[in-house]
C-alpha cells in the first residue's frame, strides 16, 4: 500500500481523489451517455430532424410508431430534433469553454509573468470588461457579428475568457518569483518558452477546476440566447429554441417542453456535480 503512493505526482493523486467521488463519476457516465446519444443517435433513424412527416403531424408519444416521442406541428420527429439540438448545444459548450479557457489562461499567464506596467494595463482592461452586464454584451456582440452560430460562439467566448484570465494571473504572479523560473531564465530560456513550459503547466489544477465550471455556463448562455430568438434559429434545432417552441405549445402539450428541458437540466446537473467533484479533489483550501 505504501509502495504505490510513493512515486505519484500531485496531479495523479488529485485524480485518484476525484475517482472516489461517486456522484461525480456517475455524472461522467451519464454525461458520456447523453453525448453519445446526441452525436450518434440521429443516425439510427431513417429521417433527420428537419424532415417533415405529413402522416404524423403533432403526433403524441407512441413507442410503436416510427416517431417514439411524437412529432411537432410540422411533423418533425421530436426525439431526433432534440438529439440534434443537443449536438449543437454540447459542441458550442465544450468548444466555447475550451477556446475561452485557452485565451484566458494565456492572457493571465502573460500578465502575471510580465508583472509591472504590462500587468496592470492588461488587468485594467479585464476589469473594465468585467463591469459590463454580461448577457447584454453577448447580445450586442452576436448582433455585431451578424447573428448565426459563429457569431453566437464568438460572442460567448469573448465574454467568458475573463474569469480564467483573472484566476491564472494571480497564480502566475506567484510562480514568476519562484526559483525554478529564475533558474530557467538564467539558463537562457526565452520568456515565451517559460510561460508555456513552466507557468501554464503549473496552473493546471486551477484551470481544470474553473474550466469545468465554464462548460455549463457556455451551454446555459447558448440556450438562453436561442430561447430569446437571438441565438440559433429555426430550422436548425438547439435546446434553447426547442424549449421556446415547447413553451408556446405548453397549454396543449407539455411534451415539447419536457424532453429538451429534461435533457438540458440533466446535462447541467452532471456538469455541476463533476465541477464540484473536481474542486473537492483539486482545491485543498476549499472546505
Amino acid at each position, binding site marked *: 500500500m505504501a509502495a504505490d503512493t510513493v512515486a505519484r505526482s500531485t496531479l495523479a493523486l488529485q485524480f485518484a481523489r476525484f475517482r472516489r467521488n461517486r456522484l461525480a463519476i456517475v455524472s461522467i457516465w451519464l454525461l458520456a451517455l447523453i453525448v453519445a446519444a446526441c452525436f450518434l443517435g440521429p443516425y439510427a433513424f431513417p429521417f433527420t430532424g428537419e424532415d417533415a412527416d405529413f402522416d404524423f403531424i403533432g403526433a403524441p408519444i407512441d413507442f410503436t410508431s416510427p416517431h417514439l416521442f411524437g412529432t411537432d406541428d410540422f411533423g418533425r420527429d421530436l426525439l431526433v430534433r432534440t438529439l440534434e439540438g443537443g449536438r449543437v448545444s454540447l459542441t458550442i459548450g465544450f468548444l466555447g469553454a475550451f477556446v475561452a479557457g485557452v485565451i484566458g489562461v494565456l492572457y493571465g499567464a502573460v500578465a502575471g509573468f510580465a508583472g509591472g506596467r504590462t500587468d496592470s494595463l492588461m488587468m485594467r482592461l479585464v*476589469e*473594465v*470588461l468585467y*463591469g*459590463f*452586464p*454580461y*448577457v*447584454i454584451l453577448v*447580445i*450586442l*456582440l452576436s*448582433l*455585431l457579428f*451578424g447573428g448565426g452560430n459563429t457569431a453566437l460562439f464568438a460572442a460567448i467566448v469573448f465574454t467568458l475568457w475573463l474569469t480564467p484570465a483573472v484566476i491564472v494571473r494571480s497564480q502566475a504572479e506567484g510562480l514568476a518569483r519562484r526559483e525554478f523560473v529564475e533558474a530557467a531564465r538564467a539558463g537562457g530560456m526565452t520568456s515565451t518558452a517559460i510561460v508555456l513550459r513552466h507557468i501554464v503547466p503549473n496552473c493546471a489544477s486551477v484551470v481544470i477546476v474553473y474550466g469545468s465550471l465554464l462548460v*455549463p455556463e457556455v451551454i*446555459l448562455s447558448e*440556450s*438562453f440566447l436561442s*430561447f*430569446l*430568438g*437571438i441565438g440559433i434559429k429555426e430550422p436548425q434545432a438547439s435546446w*434553447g429554441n426547442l*424549449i*421556446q417552441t*415547447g*413553451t408556446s405549445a*405548453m*397549454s396543449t402539450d*407539455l411534451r415539447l*417542453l419536457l424532453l429538451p*428541458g429534461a435533457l*438540458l*437540466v440533466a446535462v*447541467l*446537473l452532471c456538469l*455541476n456535480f463533476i465541477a464540484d467533484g473536481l474542486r473537492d479533489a483539486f482545491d485543498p483550501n476549499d*472546505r
Partner: protein
Amino acid sequence: MLRFIGRRVWDGGLTLAALVTLTFFVMRLAPGGPFSKSRKISPEILANIQKTYHLDEPVWMQFGRYVKGLVTFDLGPSTRFRDYTVGDMISAGLPWSVTIGIWAIIVATLIGVALGVAGAMRRNSAADYVAGIVGVVGVAVPIFVIGPLLQSVFALRLGWVPVGGIGAGWRALVLPILVLALPNVAYISRLTRSSMIETLRENYVRTARAKGVGAARMVRRHVLKGTLLPVIAYLGPATAAIITGSILIETIFALPGIGRHFVDAALNRDYPLVMGITLLYGALLIVLNIATDLIRAWIDPRLRNGR
C-alpha cells in the same frame, strides 16, 4: 477611506465610458439598419428618414451628438416606436422591472439566508438536505425551463395565478418574482452555509461560547455579522443575475418591463433603445458594485487598504 471611494468611482466611470463607446459602435457597425427590413420605400423618403435620425452624418458626428444628449439625459427617439423617445419607453417599463427585481432580491435573501443558517447550524438535518436540493435545482434548472413549467402547473392547470400579463394586479407578479428569486436563493443559501460553518470555527466565536453566551444570542451578536460579509459581496453579481433573469421572466410572463423592450429592440435593431437600456443596466451594475464594496469596507476595515 476617501481614496478608496475615489478609486472605485473612477474605475466605475471608466467602465461606463467604455460601455458607451462600445455599445454605440457595435450598434452602428452591426449589419442591417433599423429601416432596411421594412417594405421598399423610395430613396427620397429613405433619405428623409435618415436625415431625421441623423443617420446620414459621419459616425463620429453621430457619436458626438449621442454623448452630448447623454449629458442632458436625452437618449434620443426610438426608431421602432416612432412617437416615443427612449426616455418614455424606459420610464414606462422601469417601474415593472424594478418592482419584480427588488422583490426577487428580498425574497431570495430571506429564504437563502434562512436555509443557509439552518443548514449550517444543524448539518445533515432535514433542513440541510432541503437547502442542498434547492441549491442544486436553483443552479442547474434554468429559469426558462422552470418558469414555463410552473406557469403550466399553477396558471394553466390549477388557475391560481394568471398565465401572464399585468391584468390581475399583484397576483400576476407572484410567479415571476419566485422564479426570478430561485437561482439567487440557491447561491445565497450555499454561500451563507459555507461562510457560517467557517465563522463558527473562528476563535472569537469559540471565546464567546466559552464565556457562556447562549446559542441564539451568539448567532445574532457574533456569527451573523461575519457570515453575511460574503453574502453582501454577492449583491453585485446578484444584480447582474436579476437583470439577466428579468429579461427572460418578462418575456415568459409577458410583462411590460425594460427587459422585454431590450430583447425586442435588439431583434428590431432599434439602436437608441438598445443603447439606452444597456447604459441603464451598466450604470446600475456599476453603482451597485461600488455600493457593495463600500458596505463591505464599512463592515470589515481590513478591506479598506489594499484591494
